[in-house]
C-alpha cells in the first residue's frame, strides 16, 4: 500500500466542483452515479406520492387525468433509467476494480462521459413537465399510436431515451473491457465474485438490448415528424410491431435491473452466514440461462394483443421455464445459510428481505406467465404489485443492502446500525402494506394506469396509499443514515465484516484513490 499512497501524492486533480466534472477516477464516478441515483430515487418517489395521494380515495381530488398519466409515465422512466440502473453502475464502478484487483476502470474518460450524459438526459426529460401540452403521458412503454399524441414534449422524450441508452451502452462496454483485461494474475473467470459475473452478463444484455430501444424510439420520431408509418396501420404499418420491438428490449431490461441484485445478495449472504456461497458454478450457469431466456420471452408482456395460438403457447412455455434457474438461485442462497453461523446486521436483513419478497414477486411472475390466467391479470394492479415486488423489494432492497454492506468500506466509517435496522424494518412493513393489497385490487378487477376507480376498490387503495406515504417517509431515514456515515462515525476496519471474503476487504477503509496499483496475486 505504500506505493499506492505515494502514487496518490502525485495525483494532481482539480478541486471543488471541477474535480467532479473532470474526474476519471472510478470511485469518484461511482459516487456521482450513486448520488445521482439517490436524487432520482427521491424525484421518482415524489411522483409516486402524487399518484398514491390521488388514489387515496375515489374521485379526482388533486390532479387532472392527463397529469396523472404523466406522473405514472415519468415515475417509471425516472426510477428505471435514473435510479435503479445508475445505482448498479455506481456500485460496479466502486466495486468491480477492487474485486478483480485492478487500479481503476479500463476506460476512464468514457466512464466520465457516460455519467455526465445522465444529468442532461434527465434535464431534457423533466423539463417536459413545464411544456405546453404537458409531460409525456403515454406510459413508459411509449406504445404507438398513443405516444404520437404527445405534444411538444415528444422529441424531448425520444432524445432523453437516446441519451440514457448511449450512457448505459458505454457503461456496459467499460465494465466488459475492465473485467476482460484488468483482472489480477490468478483471477480466472471462475474465481470472479458473483457480483462481477452478474454484471458482465448484465453488460452483454445492455449492449444487446439498448440499441433495439434506440431503434424503436427513432422509428417513433420519424413517424411523428418525417411522414413514415412504421407503426401506423393507415399508412401500411403495424402498431403491434412497436410492442414486439419494445419488449424485445424490455424483457432483457428487467433482468438488467435484477441480475446485479442477485450478485449483491450472493456477496452479502455468505458474509453474514460465515460460510462460502453454495453452488458457485451453478449460480453462474443459472445467471447465464436467465439472460439467454430473457431474449425469447418478450411477448408475454402482450398476450392480449391477439397472437396466434402457437405463439401464445411458445411464450408461455419459455416464460415459466425461467422459474427453473431462478429457483436454483434461491435454493443456493438457502443452502448457503443452512448450517451457517448467521448474524443479522442491516445488509443481511436487506438480503433476507430480498430473498423472501423477490420470491413473492417471482410467484406472481409465474402466475402471470400462464397465458389464460394472464388474460385476467394483464394491465391490472396484479401486474403493478408483481413488478414492484421484483423491482422495489427486489432491485431496490438489494441496492440498499449493498449500500449498507459497502458504505463502511467507501467512507471508512461505520453507519449507525440501530438506524439502519429501523430503516429496514419500517421499509419492509410499509412496502408490504403498500404493494401486497395491490394483488387483491388487480384480482378484483382494477385496471392499472387509472386516476380514479369504482368504489369497491376504495378500501385497499386507501391501505396501499397509507403504506406508500409511510414507505416514502422512511426513505428520508435512509438519506440521513448515509449522510451521517459519510460525515463521520466509528472507524471501520479493513475487513469491516467478520465473515467478509474477497479482494476489496484487504484494502484499507477507505481504499486508496487507485485501488490496486500493484496487482495482488490471487491463489
Amino acid at each position: 500500500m505504500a506505493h499506492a499512497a505515494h502514487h496518490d501524492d502525485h495525483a494532481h486533480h482539480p478541486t471543488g466542483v471541477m474535480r467532479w466534472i473532470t474526474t476519471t477516477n472510478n470511485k469518484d464516478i461511482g459516487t456521482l452515479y450513486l448520488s445521482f441515483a439517490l436524487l432520482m430515487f427521491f424525484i421518482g418517489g415524489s411522483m409516486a406520492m402524487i399518484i398514491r395521494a390521488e388514489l387515496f380515495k375515489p374521485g379526482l381530488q388533486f390532479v387532472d387525468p392527463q397529469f396523472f398519466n404523466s406522473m405514472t409515465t415519468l415515475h417509471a422512466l425516472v426510477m428505471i433509467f435514473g435510479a435503479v440502473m445508475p445505482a448498479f453502475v455506481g456500485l460496479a464502478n466502486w466495486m468491480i476494480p477492487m474485486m478483480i484487483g485492478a487500479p481503476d476502470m479500463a476506460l476512464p474518460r468514457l466512464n466520465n462521459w457516460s455519467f455526465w450524459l445522465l444529468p442532461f438526459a434527465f434535464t431534457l426529460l423533466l423539463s417536459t413537465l413545464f411544456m405546453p401540452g404537458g409531460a409525456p403521458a403515454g406510459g413508459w412503454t411509449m406504445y404507438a399510436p398513443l405516444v404520437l399524441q404527445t405534444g411538444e414534449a415528444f422529441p424531448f422524450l425520444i432524445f432523453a431515451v437516446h441519451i440514457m441508452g448511449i450512457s448505459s451502452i458505454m457503461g456496459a462496454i467499460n465494465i466488459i473491457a475492465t473485467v476482460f483485461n484488468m483482472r489480477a494474475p490468478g483471477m480466472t473467470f471462475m474465481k470472479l465474485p458473483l457480483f462481477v459475473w452478474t454484471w458482465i452478463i448484465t453488460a452483454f444484455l445492455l449492449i444487446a438490448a439498448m440499441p433495439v430501444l434506440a431503434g424503436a424510439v427513432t422509428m417513433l420520431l420519424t413517424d411523428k415528424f418525417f411522414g413514415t408509418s412504421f407503426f401506423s396501420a393507415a399508412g401500411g404499418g403495424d402498431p403491434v410491431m412497436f410492442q414486439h420491438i419494445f419488449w424485445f428490449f424490455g424483457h432483457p431490461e428487467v433482468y438488467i435491473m435484477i441480475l446485479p441484485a442477485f450478485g449483491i445478495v450472493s456477496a452479502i449472504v455468505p458474509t453474514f452466514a460465515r460460510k462460502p456461497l453454495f453452488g458457485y458454478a451453478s449460480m453462474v450457469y443459472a445467471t447465464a440461462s436467465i439472460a439467454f431466456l430473457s431474449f425469447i420471452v418478450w411477448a408475454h408482456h402482450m398476450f392480449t394483443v391477439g397472437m396466434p395460438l402457437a405463439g401464445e403457447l411458445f411464450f408461455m412455455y419459455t416464460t415459466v421455464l425461467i422459474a427453473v434457474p431462478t429457483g436454483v438461485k434461491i435454493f443456493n442462497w438457502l443452502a448457503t445459510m443452512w448450517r451457517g453461523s448467521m448474524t443479522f446486521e442491516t445488509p443481511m436483513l436487506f438480503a433476507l428481505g430480498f430473498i423472501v419478497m423477490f420470491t413473492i414477486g417471482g410467484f406472481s411472475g409465474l402466475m402471470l406467465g400462464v397465458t389464460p390466467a394472464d388474460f385476467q391479470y394483464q394491465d391490472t394492479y396484479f401486474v403493478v404489485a408483481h413488478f414492484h415486488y421484483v423491482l422495489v423489494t427486489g432491485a431496490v432492497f438489494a441496492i440498499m443492502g449493498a449500500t449498507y454492506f459497502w458504505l463502511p468500506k467507501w467512507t471508512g466509517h461505520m453507519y449507525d446500525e440501530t438506524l439502519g435496522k429501523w430503516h429496514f424494518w419500517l421499509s419492509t412493513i410499509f412496502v408490504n402494506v403498500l404493494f401486497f393489497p395491490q394483488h387483491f385490487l388487480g384480482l378484483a378487477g382494477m385496471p392499472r394506469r387509472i386516476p380514479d376507480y369504482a368504489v369497491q376498490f376504495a378500501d385497499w387503495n386507501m391501505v396501499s396509499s397509507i403504506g406508500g406515504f409511510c414507505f416514502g417517509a422512511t426513505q428520508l431515514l435512509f438519506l440521513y443514515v448515509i449522510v451521517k456515515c459519510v460525515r463521520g462515525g466509528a472507524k471501520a476496519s479493513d475487513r469491516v465484516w467478520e465473515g467478509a471474503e474477497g479482494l476489496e476487504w484487504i484494502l484499507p477503509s477507505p481504499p486508496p484513490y487507485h485501488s490496486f496499483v500493484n496487482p495482488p496475486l490471487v491463489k
Partner: protein
Amino acid sequence: MSQARGQTMGRGTRKFPRSMAQLITALLSLCPAIASADWALNMRPGVTPNSQGIYHLHMIVLWICVVIGVLVFGVMFYSILHFRKSRGARAAHFHENTTVEIVWTLIPFVILVCVAVPATRTLIAMESTGNADMTIKATGYQWRWHYDYLDQGVSFFSVLAEKSNEARQPRSGIDPHTVENYLLDVDQPLVVPVGKKVRLLTTANDVIHAWWVPELGVKRDAIPGFINESWFKVETPGTYRGQCAELCGKDHGFMPIVVVAKEEGEFNKWVEDKKAAALAEAAANDPNREWKKEELMAKGAEVYTKNCAVCHQADGKGVPGNFPALAGSEIANGNVDDHIDRVLFGKNQMPAWKETLSPVEIAAVITYERNSFGNTAGDVVQPKKVAEY
C-alpha cells in the same frame, strides 16, 4: 355497503380510525364473507366456461405457489432461527453438491410441466372462436366504445353514464359513494342473449384500447388496423361490468363496458326496439331539412356536454397549455369552413368526429360553439352543409 357508508360518513371525510379498524378486521379474518364485500381478495370465477377455466387455473397455480412458498420460507426461517451465531452455531464448510443441484432443477421443471398441461388445454378452448351463434364488433374510440351487431344490423355508441361523468370531474364535490356503479355504468349497455356463443371482434379507431369484462373471461386488445377475435358464452342472465384495460390517453379510466345478458326472447325484443328507435331517430334527425337555430342550439348543448366538455371544459375555457379555449378562439369566431373542417377531421389531440357524430350533431355543436361562451359569430350551420362538406 358502499352506498350506506357514503351516506353515514358524509362527503369525502372518512375517518382514519374507522379505516384502520376495517383494515384490522380484514387482516384478522381473511374469510370469504368479507372477501365478497369491498375487501375483495381474489378473482371471481365469472359466468362463462372460459372465465371459470381461468379461475381454476389461477387457483391451481396460486396453491402451488403457496405450497412452495411455505416450504422455501420454512427452510429459510428454520435456518435463521437455528443457525445463528448468537446461539453458538458454528459454520460448516460445504459449498457444493451436484446431486442436490440436479434435484432442485428437475423438481421445479416437473411442477411446471404439470401447470403447462391444464394451461394449454384452457388456452386452446379460449382460442376456439369457430361456430359462433352471433358476431359483435367492438370498436374503441377515445374514449367510448362502439358496438356493431353484424347479424342483427344494430349499432350504437356506449359512453360513461351521465352521473358518473359528473362526479368524476376534477374537484366535482360529488362523493363517488353516492353514485350507483360509479365509473362502471354506461348510457347504453351491450346486450347479449344467454346460452349463445358470441364471437367478439375488437378493433379501434385511434389508439389501442382493450375490451375487458372480468366475469366473461375476455380481455382483448382493440388495435387500429387489426381485428382481433375472442368469444364468450354467458350462462346466467345478469349485468357484468368491465373497463378499458389498455392505457389510451387522458380518459382511459372513464370508458367502461357493461354487458347485459338476457334470455333469448327478451334479447330479440331488445333488438326490435333498438331498430325501431334507430329509425325514429333517423327520421327526427333528417340532415336534409332546414333546422331552426333554437333546435340546433339545444341539440348542440347536449352534444357538447357529452363529447367536447371533457377537454374544452363546460365553460369553453379549455385547459391552458393542454386544451385550447373555444371562448374567443379564432376557429369559433372565424371562417365557418375552418370550424367545420377542424371538427370533422381533427388535429393532433383533437379527434376527427366525422365517423363518430352525425352531420346533424356536428352542425348543432358547431352552431352551439359559435354562439356560446361569449362567442358572437351568430351564424347557423345547417346539417346539409356538413353532410356535403
